[in-house]
């Protein structure tokens, strides 16, 4: 183990870790927005909303994220979509994780007892009012942890954007391997940064979960 080498180059990894964090957080935000929209659409009684939402989930969960990313980044220019690596990484990962988050959110909404909807509707509230004020506040509590699991999977999975040359952790590890020939040290170093990011993120999810669970 070449600790002197690690001591010298870790700041470059720290910079790359920041890129990993940026890509991941932006993709998670995009995923949450898409996931919420698709979850509500897939629960709608309108087939024009429901079917596209179901198709989105099937396609993006049913094909490799790597292929989706390549399709966007390498195939995109052919149909007039020209994105830089960073943008393509965020959008590709975000759309992919959104499909998983859709199922998590949908599951949480469906897990709220049917009696809650009945009670709300019996008071004369409309479908949308019941969803907003009765169902979603309860579903939100149940979705924090599973969405956290989705998000953590995304943070680790963000390594695939190294293949479209986003200068994040995995890419940086590869780059230093080719100049130092020390793959063991480089991958250990990258792993430490991933672990640190995931640990901090998990802690954040746990705090949010405790907070929303507090009152009731």
């Amino acid at each position, binding site marked *: 183990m070449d600790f002197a080498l690690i001591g010298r180059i870790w700041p470059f990894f720290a910079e790359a870790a920041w890129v990993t964090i940026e890509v991941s957080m932006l993709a998670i935000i995009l995923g949450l927005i898409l996931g919420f929209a698709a979850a509500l659409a897939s629960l709608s*009684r309108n087939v024009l909303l429901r079917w596209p939402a179901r198709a989105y989930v099937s396609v993006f969960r049913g094909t490799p994220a790597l292929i989706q990313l390549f399709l966007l980044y390498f195939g995109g220019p052919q149909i007039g979509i020209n994105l830089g690596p960073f943008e393509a990484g965020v959008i590709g990962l975000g759309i992919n994780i959104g499909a998983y988050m859709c199922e998590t959110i949908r599951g949480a909404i469906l897990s709220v*007892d049917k*009696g*809650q909807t*009945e*009670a*709300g*509707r*019996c*008071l*004369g*509230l*409309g*479908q949308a*009012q019941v969803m907003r*004020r*009765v169902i979603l*506040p*309860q579903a939100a*509590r149940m979705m924090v942890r599973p969405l956290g699991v989705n998000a953590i999977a995304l943070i680790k999975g963000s390594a695939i954007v190294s293949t479209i040359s986003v200068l994040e952790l995995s890419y940086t590890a590869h780059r230093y391997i080719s100049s130092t020939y020390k793959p063991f040290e480089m991958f250990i170093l990258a792993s430490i940064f991933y672990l640190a990011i995931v640990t901090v993120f998990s802690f954040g999810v746990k705090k949010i979960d405790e907070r929303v669970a507090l*009152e*009731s």
Partner: protein
Amino acid sequence: MNEPIVKIRGLKKNFGSLQVLKGIDMDIDQGQIFALIGASGSGKSTLLRTINQLEEVTEGEIWFDGELVNQKLPHRQREAHLNRLRQNIGMVFQHFNLFPHLTAIENVTMAPLMLGRVNKAEAIEQAKKLLDKVGLSDRGDYYPSKLSGGQKQRVAIARSLAMNPKLMLFDEVTSALDPELVGEVNRVMKALAEEDMTMIIVTHDLRFAEDVSDHVIFMADGLVVEEGPPSLVFRAPQEDRTKSFLQQVFND
């Protein structure tokens, strides 16, 4: 005599191939207290739930306050129509269905506030009065998880009353309660009955039905077998099915 507040004609309800209501007719006048009794599966809860359209009906008519409840309407119009009707029909459930993320008082104020009936100060004042009426003036800030079953059910009654309904539906509201908590809920319902609220009560508690109702309907297999004032149905039943049902229940 005025038009009955609830009028049901030829009501049938199928769940798939199973017919649970086989032609019900019923007239309920303003201020009347109806008790629906019968064995599990007799259709009494389903009947109650068709009145505010928690269950759609297969055939027949339900009228409430001069309006046909089960009108054939396009979806949006039907929703608006039902929302308007349901604001005047309170319902209390076996499993309370209180909103667990809201305090007792927020449960009571939510619908009147969301529907723009009152402003916040009025809603809170009204909710306090209602909680006081059901004997829970000191529990307004409690979340449902901190209340007993009987307290939850009394909050649920207050929540329904906050919309000033013209009719209250009670669906086995004491069936899920520990025996020692039944009395407090029954007392609240009795007080409501004495204020001339129109009430339809689905219950297994026959003593309470006899005590509070002025008309009893005994159902079996989706049909009304016998009906009349409680003194007659309970003390001098005419039909064999009524007799055997009462015998079974009272011998337990």
